[in-house]
């Protein structure tokens, strides 16, 4: 039901998209150099932010492109949308859960 701004196609209903979880989790360039703990963190450990959160979306039923969105997971405010490879906009990512606590 949310409007997701695809950097190529513009705002579209979220039904057109596939959600890709946390953004900027780069695949290690030399996986063999990773310790077990580092590889586990790359595979499985993701933040569960309540608040502004950089996340990946794929316009699966549109242009099929991946891109990044900074979205508040609590209010659903969309703060930014940018292409892969572009620098992450400087938006303070505060975890509301920590703030609440």
């Amino acid at each position, binding site marked *: *039901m*949310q*409007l997701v701004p695809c950097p190529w196609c513009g705002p579209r*209903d979220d039904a057109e998209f*596939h959600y*890709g979880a946390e953004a900027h989790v*780069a*695949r*290690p360039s*030399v*996986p*063999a150099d*990773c310790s*077990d703990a580092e*590889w*586990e963190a*790359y*595979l499985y450990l993701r933040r569960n932010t309540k608040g502004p959160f950089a996340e*990946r979306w*794929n316009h*699966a039923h549109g242009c*099929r*492109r*991946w891109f990044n969105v900074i979205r*508040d997971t609590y*209010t*659903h*405010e*969309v703060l930014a949308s940018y292409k*892969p*490879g572009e620098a992450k906009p400087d938006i303070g990512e505060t975890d509301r859960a920590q703030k609440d606590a």
Partner: protein
Amino acid sequence: MNRQTNRFAPHPTLGGGRIDRSSPIGFSFDGQRYSGYAGDTLASALLANDVHLVGRSFKYHRPRGILGLGAEEPNALIQLARGNRSEPNLRATQIELFDGLDAASQNRWPSLKYDVGAVNSALHRLFPAGFYYKTFMWPASMWMTYEEVIRNAAGLGKAPEGPDPDRYEHMHAHPDVLIVGAGPAGLAAALAAGRTGARVVLADEQAEFGGSLLCEDDIAIDGKPAADWVAAVVAELASMPEVTLLPRTCVHGYYDHNYLLAAERVTDHIGAVVPNTPRQRLWKIRARQVVLATGMLERPLVFRDNDRPGIMLSTAARGYAVRYGVAAGRKPLIVTGHDDGYRTALAYAARGAQVVAVVDLRPEPKGPLVEAVRQKGIDILAGYSATGAFGGHRVEGVDVAVMTPDGSGLARATRRIGCDLVAMCGGFNPTVHLFSQSRGKLRWDDGLDAFVPDRIHDPVGAPQASVGGAAGTQTITAAVKDGIKAGLEAARATGSTARQPAAPKVEEPGSGEHRTLWVLPSEKPVGHQGKHFVDFQNDVTAADLGLAAREGYRSIEHVKRYTTTGMGTDQGKTSNINALGIVAATLGTDIPSVGTTTFRPPYTPTTIGVYGGRNIGKLFDPVRTTAMDAWHRANGAKFEHVGQWMRPWYYPKAGETMRQAVDRECLAARNAVGILDASTLGKIDVRGKDAAEFLNRAYTNAWLKLGIGKCRYGLMLKDSGFVMDDGVTTRLAEDHFHMTTTTGGAAAVLGHLEEHLQTEWPDLEVYLTSVTEQWAVASICGPKCRDLLAELCDDIDLANEAFPFMSMKEGTVAGIPARVFRISFTGELSFEINVPRRYGSALWNALMAAGEKHGITPYGTESMHVLRAERGFVIVGQETDGSVTPTDLGMDWIVSKTKTDFIGKRGLSRPDLMLSDRKQLVGLLTEDPTEVLPEGAQIVAQLKPQPPMVMLGHVTSSYYSANCGRSIAMALIKGGHGRKGETLSVPLAGKTVRVTVTDPIFFDPEGSRRDG
């Protein structure tokens, strides 16, 4: 047919209501025939016929009448129509009357007047708050028995058993301004917005626009009756090309970013199927701006036995008189803490009813309305409580008494006043449901004694406004003014610069201070005599709420679930605030600290059909068929679903069982020629200068040196190290590959590859295109398949040396341009012939015709599974479940040791993936060769008389193999690779099967048949 004895004669100046007395309509209720008029609802028509008793209550089976006028109605729930069109739990107050309407009451047996379940009312001490939780928690094993009895006794209507014969559709709308509610505020907003040229949608749940104005006779706008203003505004709106008017459309869900759902009742009021017209239509509306003009809902008063038929909301009683010309009673008594009750007294008095008294909770009511009632000579009992009602199937009177000044008790003895209608007014709640669904924050307004919208939730610049009653506005004057302002502002935000139209001049009665009492005092405290209903639909009383509070429930969300207050199909529209007031009073706190429950969509019950729309039956999910589908159907194939594909499962001949057909197909494939429609395999065209490097990273084995025209099997892992797909990929050119995937995994594989290309390796120049649908594939196998192909193909040398295993040649087959692959999923000599899809049928027919003399036998997916299992080939998704590694499958041979990286390589060296007691793929042979194990069966080493036993693993594939002459099975078993030769047990219902662990290869272990 009964006469409409309760219809008021048309009034000389006030008129006769908005019904058409020249259009009588016949209908039936509980089998009895009645008549009403066009413009009636079922509720108004029943009241016109003096039918007040319309249902039995949910728990106590108490006789119930009509309480409200619209969506808020908790009592008058109706089962409409019969057969598969029957619909339960409809509110009589919202059902438009049509000729032949067939309505029935609910929750009564054997009849509405003599209901056996009413004994529950006499046994009420057995049904306290939290009754289910207290009574049926023990023993837990009996719950299923209890539940069945309870479901039968405490039911609402009955759902039809067959499929819904009606059609439903979906519409999308993207208005600049969506206005919800076409009362005075909504109409004014629509007019202001519409005149700017903005794209406007105006939706109202009622058949007629006008909202409360349709039910009042004391309001003039611009010197004319309010209805004239409504008609003029609607006419102007209808003339605007960018304005869409949606009557009979309930906006019932408000979701993120101004996305709203509305259900339009397109033909329900006609009562017949209209050609080329859906019954209902779901509007999916993404609005730039939303104006909520949803009005207010009146609160009942809580007093002893306030549920007697004939006791209704004051605005409802007035609405029946003014809008429908119906006397809900000839001797009305008003009980009110609000001036609004006086308007009802005046409306009835003007039409000749004998208003017996106005019982006013306020000690000193004053103001023009009070004066007007006084001048009519109507008795005003100021500072009085209605201590209780009496009557059975119809209210007969009310006990009244002077209250103590604080309203907590009685100052004098009661006296009884006879009446046949009680109109009660406990105040008004803004209809904040949609506002709250949109996550707006509410504020308790001490002046109104109600929650009003405070702050909207607008994270993405998709604003909304609440206007009129929905915002707590008290007068029509203010509602219209605010509506104009909101409509204009909404349109301006979309770019229009139009000026504000002038607000019309509204003349309406002024209103004084009100008084709110959550429970009216009686001689005895609540719970000691009679019942003080708060939630009429779920039979929750003030005593129940008090008990819950005394038992320690503090959060209103818990009180709600414990007592079930507000949990009926009406979602507590008339009860929630009264319940909050009573709980707060019992706890000695204020309402804001008790909080409010969450409003969730839908605002009113909505048919499942309208959500389904056309996405049912064949349109529920696409069905994909191959180019050869017609041949399969014509030749008696049985089909199975593989993802969205329909694949031939097996081809039984006359009289054959499935087992016989599969045995025959499997034998033919190894002894003559078998032919399989393999078109459904996923196919991805991989192209670009870095294509080989990309495949090298995507698969576990090496790809850089694959020769042009050569094929290679690949196993695809996730970075976790677990198997996700497999398939054969062929190099068509230096920079061009043809990849195949499993049938079910094609979309996921494409997504997986695209994701890595876009997000991890954007430096690689590779282009992926799904070509699954572009190719039709016939796979032929068996010792005679080379002879068969040779007859149809003269431009490819089919000799083993010229066309070796795992290579591809382009040529023509049966005159059709083809790519022929020498790959095999059966272990037999095999050719997979790929042709453009449009030639698929021609290719298949040519192969079948030429193959007849070779005994060509089409086989389906079942035989394909058996044939590959005989050779120990895995199927991803059958032998794997997302937690299986290549090592587990015994497929280390395909995992490169020399490549520095590929997707999954690092994952494979995680400690847990290298344990020796992981579940590993093995073969199983049963002691009895005819015994076929069920797939999924658990395997144990130590058998015990009964579970639990230590489970070692489970059977992944199991078949009878005609080629082996016995049953075969594959299984994932802990440490399986080290268990070969062991005997294990498979406990099944009623028996245990002994099995021997083997290699998972059962036929031709040397692979000698591959080259023919």
